[in-house]
């Protein structure tokens, strides 16, 4: 008798739990607002390897990836020169001597210097310029009619910041 009472109680509890567990779940959808994430220059503390630097630079300028063979050869040539900046500048000047680069025309730069400067910072540094940086470049480009897109791109490409991430 005593055991039979316990069994009835247990069955009752299990039934109630089963009923409670079968409650239909609410259909909730979570969303994320679109947000473009840019880098912060103060957080760029890791230097790109030569291979990373060359492949990123090449892709940036040609909009196609560099071939492994070309990457290997370029990497070795850079390693063969003591001042890496000299090597990078020479590699870059070879790139600028080719016709397949994907860069804006000088007239496009001159048409909207502020937009060009902002695009440069985003393209090379993956961040927006500060007001000071923006002002410097706008003033410099506007007051120096001989400054070309090639010159600005060279300055960004061989800058210290472009070699870090």
């Amino acid at each position: 008798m005593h055991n039979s009472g316990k069994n009835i109680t247990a069955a009752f509890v299990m039934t109630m739990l089963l009923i409670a567990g079968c409650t239909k779940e609410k259909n909730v959808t979570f969303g994320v607002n679109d947000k473009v994430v840019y880098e912060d220059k103060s957080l760029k503390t890791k230097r790109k390897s030569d291979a990373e630097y060359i492949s990123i630079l090449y892709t940036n300028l040609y909009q196609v990836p560099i071939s492994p063979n070309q990457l290997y050869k370029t990497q070795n040539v850079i390693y063969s020169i003591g001042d890496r900046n000299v090597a990078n500048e020479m590699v870059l000047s070879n790139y600028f001597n080719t016709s397949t680069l994907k860069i804006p025309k000088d007239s496009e730069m001159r048409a909207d210097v502020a937009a060009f400067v902002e695009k440069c910072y985003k393209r090379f540094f993956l961040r927006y310029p500060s007001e000071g940086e923006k002002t410097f470049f706008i003033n410099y480009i506007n007051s120096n009619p001989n400054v070309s897109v090639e010159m600005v791109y060279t300055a960004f490409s061989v800058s210290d910041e472009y070699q870090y991430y």
Partner: protein
Amino acid sequence: MVTAGTVAAPYILPTGRMFARTNAPKAEYVVMVMFAGGVRQQESVLQRYLDDSQEVTGAAGNIMPNLFTGIAPDRKIVYGTDPGGGATRGSEPIPRILSQSMEDTGAVFKEMSAISAGHYVGLNTLITGSLGTAQGLKTRPKYPTIFEYLRKHAGFAALDTWFIANGLGNSTPLLNSSKNEDYGLQYGGNMFAAPYTFGGVGREILGNGKPYSRADLDPMYFMKNFLDQSFGLNPNQLETIKNTDEEKTKIKEFIRAVFQRQDQGLIPRPPVSDNGDAVTISYAAEVLRHFKPKFLTLNMSAVDGCHSNFTGYLRSLHRADHSVGWLWNYIQNNIPEMSGKTIMIIAPECGRNLNPNPILDENDWYAYDHSDANAMRVWSVMVGKNVPKISVGSEGNKVGKLTDIVPTIADIFGVYDEVKASPYLDPQSKSLFLRM
């Protein structure tokens, strides 16, 4: 004897720091040759040729006539050029370039101690003057290099100090600077791994560059310098040596000029230049001719073929002597600014074993590795301005060690005490001028 104790007048470094030279300079220029990649005493300074290596009795003699004084072997000549016509390969020795051997005009340290029987540590010893036997490959020297000492203490500009490496292997392109916190890359020397920079691949990657004018470059550097200031890299984050914008421009102009001179067939070459060392030496001569650097060191390595080819080793040794003799001659006759004002120092970074390994070559001669006590035996030759004619030490009487080379160079440039005060230098090292 020349000593290192004279106090000279103070002068002001380019940095603006007042600085008193610790001793009078002995010469205006130094060229150091890191000779060849593991050289046995027996076939070089001891002039025993096959007598001591392959048990060919009566085949002793000098196969390095530009460095050492002595009669050439008269048996089994294989180290020269090929006369053709069915004659024995290599049976025509290359004629001596110098009118007198360096031994006849300079100082020879006949028996010195190497610090290591390996290449990279040996090269580090020559270039740092330190006992860094724990030096690893693929890392920069643990201790300051001679480039850093000279740039920091003698006030040399980056273009005053050059290292011409023989290639990309064995981590040699890293020897132009340490990352030492007291010295480091801001004081590093310029460097070309010349056979690669100026070889086919270098030409493909660098040879089509735009020759920017000053008017092009000034805005580029102005904008770059603004960006760099904005980023604010710390000196300890430097990963490359530092040239000024003007120095960088000069280096780029030089690289372009070399490619043009290649096209015009104007690169000077030793008369026999059929191996990599001759190519390295050629570009060292180009750098000397163009920049007239106060200090240049170059690395050779062809004799390392001795691991598997003794005949090839003899040929490379003979050619290394030929190339170095040619370079010394080139400086005297083609670079008037350096002629009569230069000291050349030559030393292998390590020796080679007493006993051979089992590998036989085309002449059935055994090859040699470098790992035993015999590989710790080396020599050094010094020639040029203010170097007396003297022979120091002998077999069984070691005088000097490879860590002496750095203080010797410091002594030549008048910054001996400052460099000797470095805690990174082998404390027992000293100028070879003080060991004469």
